[in-house]
Protein backbone atom coordinates (compact mmCIF):
# COMPACT_ATOMS: atom_id res chain seq x y z
CA UNK A 1 0.00 0.00 0.00
CA UNK A 2 2.81 2.45 0.73
CA UNK A 3 4.16 1.83 -2.80
CA UNK A 4 0.82 2.88 -4.25
CA UNK A 5 0.47 5.75 -1.82
CA UNK A 6 3.81 7.08 -3.03
CA UNK A 7 2.33 7.68 -6.51
CA UNK A 8 -0.93 8.85 -5.03
CA UNK A 9 0.94 11.48 -3.03
CA UNK A 10 3.10 12.79 -5.87
CA UNK A 11 0.07 12.92 -8.19
CA UNK A 12 -1.74 14.89 -5.51
CA UNK A 13 1.12 17.34 -5.36
CA UNK A 14 1.09 17.62 -9.15
CA UNK A 15 -2.48 18.91 -9.01
CA UNK A 16 -1.04 22.25 -7.95
CA UNK A 17 -1.99 24.82 -10.57
CA UNK A 18 1.58 25.52 -11.52
CA UNK A 19 2.24 21.85 -12.21
CA UNK A 20 -0.89 21.49 -14.33
CA UNK A 21 -0.19 24.71 -16.26
CA UNK A 22 3.59 24.35 -16.38
CA UNK A 23 4.14 27.76 -14.85
CA UNK A 24 6.34 26.59 -11.93
CA UNK A 25 9.96 27.61 -11.51
CA UNK A 26 12.40 25.43 -13.39
CA UNK A 27 13.85 23.69 -10.36
CA UNK A 28 10.32 23.08 -9.07
CA UNK A 29 9.39 21.38 -12.34
CA UNK A 30 12.47 19.21 -12.03
CA UNK A 31 11.41 18.29 -8.50
CA UNK A 32 7.91 17.36 -9.68
CA UNK A 33 9.44 15.13 -12.32
CA UNK A 34 11.79 13.48 -9.86
CA UNK A 35 8.98 12.72 -7.40
CA UNK A 36 6.65 11.42 -10.13
CA UNK A 37 9.39 9.20 -11.55
CA UNK A 38 10.39 7.72 -8.22
CA UNK A 39 6.79 7.01 -7.26
CA UNK A 40 6.08 5.48 -10.70
CA UNK A 41 8.98 3.11 -10.05
CA UNK A 42 7.47 2.26 -6.64
CA UNK A 43 4.16 1.50 -8.32
CA UNK A 44 5.86 -0.64 -10.92
CA UNK A 45 7.32 -2.75 -8.12
CA UNK A 46 3.81 -3.31 -6.83
CA UNK A 47 2.47 -4.20 -10.26
CA UNK A 48 5.34 -6.63 -10.74
CA UNK A 49 4.67 -8.25 -7.35
CA UNK A 50 0.95 -8.57 -8.05
CA UNK A 51 1.63 -10.04 -11.47
CA UNK A 52 3.94 -12.70 -10.13
CA UNK A 53 1.23 -13.67 -7.62
CA UNK A 54 -1.10 -14.29 -10.57
CA UNK A 55 1.33 -16.80 -12.03
CA UNK A 56 1.03 -20.47 -11.13
CA UNK A 57 3.08 -21.85 -8.24
CA UNK A 58 6.68 -22.48 -9.13
CA UNK A 59 6.87 -19.88 -11.83
CA UNK A 60 8.04 -17.18 -9.47
CA UNK A 61 11.50 -18.07 -10.80
CA UNK A 62 10.53 -16.19 -13.97
CA UNK A 63 12.41 -12.88 -14.42
CA UNK A 64 10.60 -9.91 -12.87
CA UNK A 65 8.40 -7.60 -14.87
CA UNK A 66 10.28 -4.61 -16.35
CA UNK A 67 8.84 -1.30 -17.43
CA UNK A 68 9.99 1.18 -20.08
CA UNK A 69 9.27 4.85 -19.51
CA UNK A 70 10.88 6.02 -22.74
CA UNK A 71 8.78 4.16 -25.29
CA UNK A 72 7.77 7.55 -26.69
CA UNK A 73 11.36 8.05 -27.86
CA UNK A 74 11.71 4.41 -28.97
CA UNK A 75 13.91 3.35 -26.08
CA UNK A 76 13.42 0.14 -24.12
CA UNK A 77 16.47 -1.89 -23.09
CA UNK A 78 14.71 -5.25 -22.81
CA UNK A 79 12.96 -5.18 -26.21
CA UNK A 80 16.11 -3.90 -27.91
CA UNK A 81 18.38 -6.57 -26.49
CA UNK A 82 16.22 -9.70 -26.09
CA UNK A 83 15.54 -12.14 -28.86
CA UNK A 84 12.76 -13.74 -26.83
CA UNK A 85 10.51 -11.86 -24.43
CA UNK A 86 6.92 -11.44 -23.34
CA UNK A 87 5.00 -8.23 -23.00
CA UNK A 88 1.93 -7.86 -20.83
CA UNK A 89 -0.59 -5.21 -21.83
CA UNK A 90 -2.82 -3.97 -19.00
CA UNK A 91 -6.08 -2.13 -19.85
CA UNK A 92 -6.96 0.44 -17.17
CA UNK A 93 -10.37 1.25 -18.72
CA UNK A 94 -13.71 -0.11 -17.68
CA UNK A 95 -14.38 -1.73 -21.02
CA UNK A 96 -12.53 -3.92 -23.48
CA UNK A 97 -10.06 -2.15 -25.77
CA UNK A 98 -8.07 -2.98 -28.86
CA UNK A 99 -4.85 -1.06 -29.32
CA UNK A 100 -1.74 -1.04 -31.43
CA UNK A 101 1.56 -1.77 -29.69
CA UNK A 102 4.89 -0.29 -30.86
CA UNK A 103 8.11 -1.75 -29.43
CA UNK A 104 11.64 -0.52 -30.22
CA UNK A 105 13.67 -3.49 -31.55
CA UNK A 106 16.72 -4.34 -33.64
CA UNK A 107 16.18 -5.19 -37.28
CA UNK A 108 15.14 -8.79 -37.90
CA UNK A 109 12.13 -11.01 -38.41
CA UNK A 110 9.82 -11.39 -35.44
CA UNK A 111 6.99 -13.70 -34.55
CA UNK A 112 4.34 -12.50 -32.11
CA UNK A 113 1.98 -15.03 -30.52
CA UNK A 114 -1.14 -14.16 -28.57
CA UNK A 115 -2.05 -16.07 -25.40
CA UNK A 116 -3.65 -18.82 -27.49
CA UNK A 117 -0.54 -19.27 -29.55
CA UNK A 118 -2.03 -17.69 -32.67
CA UNK A 119 0.51 -15.79 -34.75
CA UNK A 120 -0.36 -12.08 -35.15
CA UNK A 121 0.18 -9.84 -38.16
CA UNK A 122 3.34 -7.83 -37.51
CA UNK A 123 4.92 -4.82 -39.18
CA UNK A 124 8.48 -3.63 -38.74
CA UNK A 125 8.66 0.17 -39.13
CA UNK A 126 12.13 1.68 -39.58
CA UNK A 127 12.96 4.51 -37.21
CA UNK A 128 13.59 7.65 -39.20
CA UNK A 129 17.33 7.88 -39.70
CA UNK A 130 19.65 10.16 -37.78
CA UNK A 131 20.35 12.40 -40.74
CA UNK A 132 16.91 13.85 -40.81
CA UNK A 133 15.88 13.64 -37.21
CA UNK A 134 18.27 14.89 -34.53
CA UNK A 135 18.12 11.42 -33.10
CA UNK A 136 21.11 11.76 -30.85
CA UNK A 137 19.47 14.52 -28.86
CA UNK A 138 16.26 12.55 -28.52
CA UNK A 139 17.19 9.01 -27.54
CA UNK A 140 20.81 8.89 -26.50
CA UNK A 141 20.61 5.43 -24.99
CA UNK A 142 18.73 3.41 -27.60
CA UNK A 143 20.15 1.02 -30.15
CA UNK A 144 16.79 0.23 -31.74
CA UNK A 145 16.59 0.52 -35.51
CA UNK A 146 12.89 -0.34 -35.96
CA UNK A 147 9.61 -0.41 -34.16
CA UNK A 148 7.70 -3.70 -34.02
CA UNK A 149 4.00 -2.98 -34.49
CA UNK A 150 1.17 -5.41 -33.79
CA UNK A 151 -2.44 -5.14 -32.69
CA UNK A 152 -3.26 -6.15 -29.11
CA UNK A 153 -6.89 -7.03 -29.59
CA UNK A 154 -9.71 -7.29 -27.05
CA UNK A 155 -7.82 -6.53 -23.84
CA UNK A 156 -10.45 -7.13 -21.15
CA UNK A 157 -11.71 -4.30 -18.96
CA UNK A 158 -9.36 -3.69 -16.04
CA UNK A 159 -7.52 -6.75 -17.31
CA UNK A 160 -4.43 -7.76 -19.21
CA UNK A 161 -3.13 -9.95 -21.99
CA UNK A 162 0.38 -11.28 -22.50
CA UNK A 163 2.05 -11.62 -25.89
CA UNK A 164 5.04 -13.82 -26.65
CA UNK A 165 7.63 -12.29 -29.01
CA UNK A 166 10.55 -14.10 -30.57
CA UNK A 167 13.11 -12.98 -33.10
CA UNK A 168 13.01 -15.55 -35.88
CA UNK A 169 16.67 -16.31 -35.89
CA UNK A 170 16.10 -17.59 -32.37
CA UNK A 171 13.36 -20.01 -33.45
CA UNK A 172 15.20 -23.31 -34.11
CA UNK A 173 14.49 -25.29 -37.24
CA UNK A 174 12.68 -22.50 -39.06
CA UNK A 175 13.19 -22.83 -42.81
CA UNK A 176 15.05 -20.04 -44.58
CA UNK A 177 12.18 -19.68 -47.03
CA UNK A 178 9.76 -19.17 -44.15
CA UNK A 179 11.93 -16.44 -42.72
CA UNK A 180 12.17 -14.74 -46.10
CA UNK A 181 8.42 -14.73 -46.62
CA UNK A 182 7.86 -13.49 -43.07
CA UNK A 183 10.38 -10.74 -43.64
CA UNK A 184 8.50 -9.61 -46.73
CA UNK A 185 5.12 -9.72 -44.98
CA UNK A 186 6.43 -7.65 -42.09
CA UNK A 187 8.32 -5.13 -44.16
CA UNK A 188 7.52 -1.47 -44.57
CA UNK A 189 7.87 0.23 -47.93
CA UNK A 190 9.95 3.36 -47.46
CA UNK A 191 10.08 6.31 -49.81
CA UNK A 192 12.30 9.29 -49.06
CA UNK A 193 12.45 12.72 -50.63
CA UNK A 194 15.62 13.05 -52.67
CA UNK A 195 18.05 15.64 -51.34
Amino acid at each position, binding site marked *: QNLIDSLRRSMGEAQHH*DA*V*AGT*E*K*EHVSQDYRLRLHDSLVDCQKD*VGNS*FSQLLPIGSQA*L*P*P*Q*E*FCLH*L*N*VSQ*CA*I*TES*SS*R*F*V*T*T*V*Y*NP*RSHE*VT*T*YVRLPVMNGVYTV*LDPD*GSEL*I*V*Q*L*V*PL*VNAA*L*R*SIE*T*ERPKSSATHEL*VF*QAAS*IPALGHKTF*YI*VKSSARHGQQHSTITSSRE*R*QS*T*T*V*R*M*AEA
Partner: protein
Amino acid sequence: GERIAVSNGKLSVNFDANGLIESVVVDGVTVMMSQNLMWYAGMNEGNANSIFDDRPSGAYVFRPNGTDATPISTQATLIVQTGALVSEVYQQFSDWASQVVRVYKGQSDVEIEWTVGPIPVGDGIGKEIVSRVTTQIPSGGRFYTDSNGRQTLLRRRDFRPTWTLDVTEPVSGNYYPINSHIYVTDSEQNAGAVLALVNDRSQGGTSLKDGQIELMVHRRLLYDDHFGVGEPLNEPGDGPGLVVRGTHYLLVNPSLAGNHPVSLIRPLAQQMFMRPWMSFSATSLSFTNWK
Protein backbone atom coordinates in the same frame (compact mmCIF):
# COMPACT_ATOMS: atom_id res chain seq x y z
CA GLY B 1 7.51 17.66 -55.48
CA GLU B 2 5.01 14.79 -55.68
CA ARG B 3 1.51 14.50 -54.26
CA ILE B 4 1.47 11.69 -51.65
CA ALA B 5 -1.41 9.80 -50.04
CA VAL B 6 -1.48 7.29 -47.20
CA SER B 7 -4.59 5.31 -46.42
CA ASN B 8 -5.88 2.66 -44.06
CA GLY B 9 -8.86 1.68 -46.10
CA LYS B 10 -11.18 3.79 -43.96
CA LEU B 11 -9.65 7.20 -44.54
CA SER B 12 -6.76 8.64 -46.47
CA VAL B 13 -4.56 11.65 -45.87
CA ASN B 14 -3.33 13.51 -48.94
CA PHE B 15 -0.19 15.64 -49.03
CA ASP B 16 0.51 18.33 -51.62
CA ALA B 17 3.74 18.88 -53.55
CA ASN B 18 5.11 20.95 -50.65
CA GLY B 19 4.76 17.99 -48.33
CA LEU B 20 1.89 19.54 -46.34
CA ILE B 21 -1.53 17.97 -45.68
CA GLU B 22 -4.02 19.21 -48.27
CA SER B 23 -7.06 17.03 -47.65
CA VAL B 24 -8.49 14.05 -45.80
CA VAL B 25 -10.87 11.64 -47.52
CA VAL B 26 -13.41 9.99 -45.19
CA ASP B 27 -16.06 7.58 -46.50
CA GLY B 28 -15.26 8.80 -50.00
CA VAL B 29 -15.88 12.45 -49.12
CA THR B 30 -12.91 14.79 -49.49
CA VAL B 31 -12.48 17.39 -46.78
CA MET B 32 -10.01 20.08 -47.83
CA MET B 33 -7.68 20.81 -44.98
CA SER B 34 -4.29 22.35 -44.20
CA GLN B 35 -2.22 21.59 -41.12
CA ASN B 36 1.09 23.11 -40.06
CA LEU B 37 3.29 23.90 -37.07
CA MET B 38 3.43 27.69 -36.55
CA TRP B 39 4.90 30.15 -34.06
CA TYR B 40 3.75 33.30 -32.26
CA ALA B 41 6.36 35.90 -31.38
CA GLY B 42 6.58 36.51 -27.63
CA MET B 43 6.11 40.07 -26.36
CA ASN B 44 9.42 41.43 -25.12
CA GLU B 45 10.24 43.58 -22.09
CA GLY B 46 9.56 47.32 -21.96
CA ASN B 47 6.01 47.55 -23.25
CA ALA B 48 4.51 49.60 -20.43
CA ASN B 49 2.13 52.37 -21.48
CA SER B 50 -0.50 54.61 -19.89
CA ILE B 51 -2.87 51.66 -19.44
CA PHE B 52 -0.67 48.59 -18.86
CA ASP B 53 2.43 48.33 -16.79
CA ASP B 54 5.23 46.16 -18.18
CA ARG B 55 3.79 42.79 -19.29
CA PRO B 56 6.16 40.72 -21.43
CA SER B 57 5.09 37.21 -22.47
CA GLY B 58 6.08 34.70 -19.82
CA ALA B 59 5.09 31.59 -17.91
CA TYR B 60 1.79 33.13 -16.78
CA VAL B 61 1.22 35.47 -19.74
CA PHE B 62 0.33 34.46 -23.29
CA ARG B 63 0.33 37.74 -25.12
CA PRO B 64 1.76 37.38 -28.60
CA ASN B 65 3.41 40.30 -30.34
CA GLY B 66 1.17 40.52 -33.41
CA THR B 67 -2.21 39.11 -34.38
CA ASP B 68 -1.25 35.91 -36.15
CA ALA B 69 1.22 33.03 -36.15
CA THR B 70 3.87 32.33 -38.80
CA PRO B 71 4.49 28.87 -40.30
CA ILE B 72 7.82 27.39 -39.21
CA SER B 73 8.14 26.32 -42.82
CA THR B 74 5.85 26.26 -45.86
CA GLN B 75 7.49 23.05 -46.99
CA ALA B 76 8.30 19.74 -45.43
CA THR B 77 10.76 17.01 -46.34
CA LEU B 78 8.95 13.68 -46.34
CA ILE B 79 9.71 10.07 -45.56
CA VAL B 80 6.73 7.86 -46.42
CA GLN B 81 6.50 4.39 -44.82
CA THR B 82 3.62 2.08 -45.65
CA GLY B 83 2.86 -1.44 -44.47
CA ALA B 84 0.24 -3.96 -43.44
CA LEU B 85 -0.80 -2.34 -40.15
CA VAL B 86 0.28 1.29 -40.23
CA SER B 87 1.20 3.87 -42.87
CA GLU B 88 3.02 6.97 -41.73
CA VAL B 89 4.47 10.11 -43.23
CA TYR B 90 7.37 11.73 -41.43
CA GLN B 91 7.44 15.49 -42.10
CA GLN B 92 10.62 17.47 -41.32
CA PHE B 93 9.77 21.20 -41.24
CA SER B 94 13.11 22.35 -39.85
CA ASP B 95 15.91 20.90 -37.77
CA TRP B 96 13.86 21.64 -34.67
CA ALA B 97 10.30 20.84 -35.79
CA SER B 98 8.99 17.59 -37.23
CA GLN B 99 5.95 15.35 -36.95
CA VAL B 100 4.77 11.89 -37.99
CA VAL B 101 1.26 11.54 -39.45
CA ARG B 102 0.03 7.97 -38.87
CA VAL B 103 -3.02 6.06 -40.04
CA TYR B 104 -3.50 2.65 -38.42
CA LYS B 105 -5.50 -0.10 -40.10
CA GLY B 106 -9.13 0.08 -39.02
CA GLN B 107 -8.85 3.36 -37.10
CA SER B 108 -11.11 6.33 -37.87
CA ASP B 109 -8.66 9.00 -36.68
CA VAL B 110 -5.29 10.31 -37.77
CA GLU B 111 -2.50 10.27 -35.19
CA ILE B 112 -0.09 13.22 -35.35
CA GLU B 113 3.06 12.78 -33.23
CA TRP B 114 4.83 16.15 -33.06
CA THR B 115 8.41 16.75 -31.94
CA VAL B 116 9.35 20.39 -31.33
CA GLY B 117 12.51 21.98 -29.96
CA PRO B 118 14.94 23.21 -29.01
CA ILE B 119 13.21 26.41 -30.11
CA PRO B 120 15.80 28.82 -31.56
CA VAL B 121 15.83 32.22 -29.86
CA GLY B 122 19.03 33.58 -31.36
CA ASP B 123 16.96 36.39 -32.86
CA GLY B 124 16.12 37.59 -29.37
CA ILE B 125 12.43 36.72 -29.80
CA GLY B 126 10.63 34.21 -27.55
CA LYS B 127 8.38 31.83 -29.46
CA GLU B 128 5.22 29.87 -28.75
CA ILE B 129 4.54 26.96 -31.11
CA VAL B 130 1.08 25.80 -32.18
CA SER B 131 -0.28 23.04 -34.38
CA ARG B 132 -3.03 24.59 -36.50
CA VAL B 133 -5.61 22.77 -38.63
CA THR B 134 -7.76 24.72 -41.09
CA THR B 135 -10.80 23.49 -43.02
CA GLN B 136 -13.69 25.21 -44.79
CA ILE B 137 -16.26 24.18 -42.21
CA PRO B 138 -18.47 27.27 -41.63
CA SER B 139 -18.41 27.14 -37.85
CA GLY B 140 -19.82 30.66 -37.37
CA GLY B 141 -17.39 31.83 -34.71
CA ARG B 142 -18.35 28.90 -32.44
CA PHE B 143 -16.03 26.23 -31.10
CA TYR B 144 -16.20 23.72 -28.25
CA THR B 145 -13.62 22.90 -25.59
CA ASP B 146 -13.67 20.44 -22.72
CA SER B 147 -13.50 21.45 -19.08
CA ASN B 148 -11.07 19.18 -17.26
CA GLY B 149 -12.08 16.38 -19.57
CA ARG B 150 -15.67 16.44 -18.34
CA GLN B 151 -18.22 18.90 -19.65
CA THR B 152 -17.81 20.24 -23.19
CA LEU B 153 -18.46 23.98 -23.35
CA LEU B 154 -19.54 26.22 -26.21
CA ARG B 155 -17.09 29.05 -26.85
CA ARG B 156 -17.80 32.02 -29.09
CA ARG B 157 -15.01 34.09 -30.61
CA ASP B 158 -14.54 37.62 -29.21
CA PHE B 159 -17.41 37.03 -26.79
CA ARG B 160 -18.07 36.54 -23.10
CA PRO B 161 -21.44 35.23 -21.93
CA THR B 162 -21.57 37.38 -18.80
CA TRP B 163 -20.12 40.74 -19.89
CA THR B 164 -19.49 42.77 -23.00
CA LEU B 165 -15.95 42.01 -24.03
CA ASP B 166 -13.67 44.81 -25.20
CA VAL B 167 -11.26 42.88 -27.47
CA THR B 168 -7.74 44.13 -26.71
CA GLU B 169 -5.99 40.78 -27.21
CA PRO B 170 -7.56 39.17 -30.32
CA VAL B 171 -5.45 36.01 -30.01
CA SER B 172 -4.95 35.36 -26.31
CA GLY B 173 -8.41 36.69 -25.52
CA ASN B 174 -9.81 33.70 -27.42
CA TYR B 175 -7.50 31.07 -25.92
CA TYR B 176 -8.99 28.50 -23.52
CA PRO B 177 -7.53 25.56 -21.55
CA ILE B 178 -7.86 22.33 -23.53
CA ASN B 179 -7.39 19.31 -21.32
CA SER B 180 -8.90 16.67 -23.62
CA HIS B 181 -10.42 17.95 -26.86
CA ILE B 182 -11.46 20.94 -29.01
CA TYR B 183 -13.75 20.84 -32.01
CA VAL B 184 -15.69 22.91 -34.54
CA THR B 185 -18.82 21.94 -36.39
CA ASP B 186 -21.07 23.64 -38.89
CA SER B 187 -24.33 22.42 -37.54
CA GLU B 188 -26.33 22.61 -34.37
CA GLN B 189 -28.50 19.70 -35.53
CA ASN B 190 -25.57 17.19 -35.68
CA ALA B 191 -26.09 16.83 -39.39
CA GLY B 192 -22.99 18.55 -40.77
CA ALA B 193 -19.25 18.11 -40.47
CA VAL B 194 -16.91 18.08 -37.48
CA LEU B 195 -13.20 18.75 -37.08
CA ALA B 196 -11.65 17.80 -33.73
CA LEU B 197 -8.27 17.51 -32.06
CA VAL B 198 -7.74 15.31 -29.00
CA ASN B 199 -4.62 16.12 -26.99
CA ASP B 200 -2.51 14.03 -24.64
CA ARG B 201 -1.83 16.78 -22.04
CA SER B 202 -3.29 20.12 -20.99
CA GLN B 203 -2.61 22.73 -23.68
CA GLY B 204 -4.02 26.13 -24.68
CA GLY B 205 -6.20 26.22 -27.77
CA THR B 206 -8.61 28.31 -29.83
CA SER B 207 -10.43 28.79 -33.13
CA LEU B 208 -9.39 32.16 -34.59
CA LYS B 209 -11.15 31.60 -37.91
CA ASP B 210 -14.18 29.58 -39.00
CA GLY B 211 -13.29 25.95 -39.59
CA GLN B 212 -9.91 26.32 -37.86
CA ILE B 213 -8.58 25.01 -34.55
CA GLU B 214 -5.13 25.17 -33.00
CA LEU B 215 -3.36 23.77 -29.94
CA MET B 216 -0.21 25.20 -28.36
CA VAL B 217 2.49 22.52 -28.08
CA HIS B 218 5.64 24.32 -26.83
CA ARG B 219 6.79 27.68 -25.49
CA ARG B 220 10.16 29.31 -24.94
CA LEU B 221 10.13 32.88 -23.63
CA LEU B 222 12.96 35.20 -22.69
CA TYR B 223 11.59 37.45 -19.94
CA ASP B 224 10.06 37.20 -16.51
CA ASP B 225 6.41 38.26 -16.82
CA HIS B 226 6.44 39.91 -13.34
CA PHE B 227 3.55 37.73 -12.22
CA GLY B 228 5.58 36.04 -9.52
CA VAL B 229 7.46 33.05 -11.01
CA GLY B 230 10.52 35.29 -11.05
CA GLU B 231 12.24 33.78 -14.10
CA PRO B 232 11.71 33.47 -17.87
CA LEU B 233 10.10 30.29 -19.29
CA ASN B 234 13.41 29.28 -20.77
CA GLU B 235 14.50 25.81 -19.56
CA PRO B 236 17.04 24.58 -18.81
CA GLY B 237 18.68 27.77 -17.48
CA ASP B 238 20.52 29.42 -20.36
CA GLY B 239 20.94 26.04 -22.05
CA PRO B 240 19.74 24.85 -25.42
CA GLY B 241 16.04 24.69 -24.56
CA LEU B 242 13.79 21.64 -24.34
CA VAL B 243 12.73 19.07 -26.95
CA VAL B 244 9.07 18.14 -26.45
CA ARG B 245 7.17 15.30 -28.07
CA GLY B 246 3.46 14.59 -27.91
CA THR B 247 0.45 13.24 -29.74
CA HIS B 248 -2.76 14.69 -31.13
CA TYR B 249 -5.59 12.61 -32.58
CA LEU B 250 -7.16 14.38 -35.56
CA LEU B 251 -10.79 13.51 -36.19
CA VAL B 252 -12.53 14.66 -39.38
CA ASN B 253 -16.07 13.59 -40.18
CA PRO B 254 -17.86 15.17 -43.16
CA SER B 255 -21.32 14.16 -42.05
CA LEU B 256 -22.32 13.52 -38.46
CA ALA B 257 -25.56 11.88 -39.62
CA GLY B 258 -27.23 12.57 -36.31
CA ASN B 259 -24.28 11.59 -34.11
CA HIS B 260 -23.34 14.14 -31.51
CA PRO B 261 -19.71 15.16 -32.12
CA VAL B 262 -18.73 14.22 -28.58
CA SER B 263 -19.97 10.66 -29.12
CA LEU B 264 -17.21 10.35 -31.74
CA ILE B 265 -14.61 12.25 -29.68
CA ARG B 266 -15.06 10.70 -26.23
CA PRO B 267 -13.83 7.19 -27.16
CA LEU B 268 -10.67 8.78 -28.63
CA ALA B 269 -10.25 10.95 -25.54
CA GLN B 270 -10.51 7.90 -23.27
CA GLN B 271 -8.11 5.99 -25.54
CA MET B 272 -5.64 8.87 -25.23
CA PHE B 273 -6.13 9.47 -21.53
CA MET B 274 -6.12 5.89 -20.31
CA ARG B 275 -3.65 4.15 -22.55
CA PRO B 276 -2.73 0.55 -21.81
CA TRP B 277 0.29 -0.05 -19.55
CA MET B 278 2.97 -2.41 -20.78
CA SER B 279 5.47 -4.49 -18.87
CA PHE B 280 8.12 -6.84 -20.22
CA SER B 281 9.92 -9.97 -19.17
CA ALA B 282 12.77 -11.74 -20.96
CA THR B 283 12.46 -15.49 -21.26
CA SER B 284 14.42 -18.40 -22.68
CA LEU B 285 11.41 -20.73 -22.63
CA SER B 286 9.60 -21.84 -25.75
CA PHE B 287 6.05 -20.57 -26.08
CA THR B 288 4.57 -23.92 -25.03
CA ASN B 289 6.77 -24.24 -21.95
CA TRP B 290 6.21 -20.62 -21.07
CA LYS B 291 2.42 -20.95 -21.48
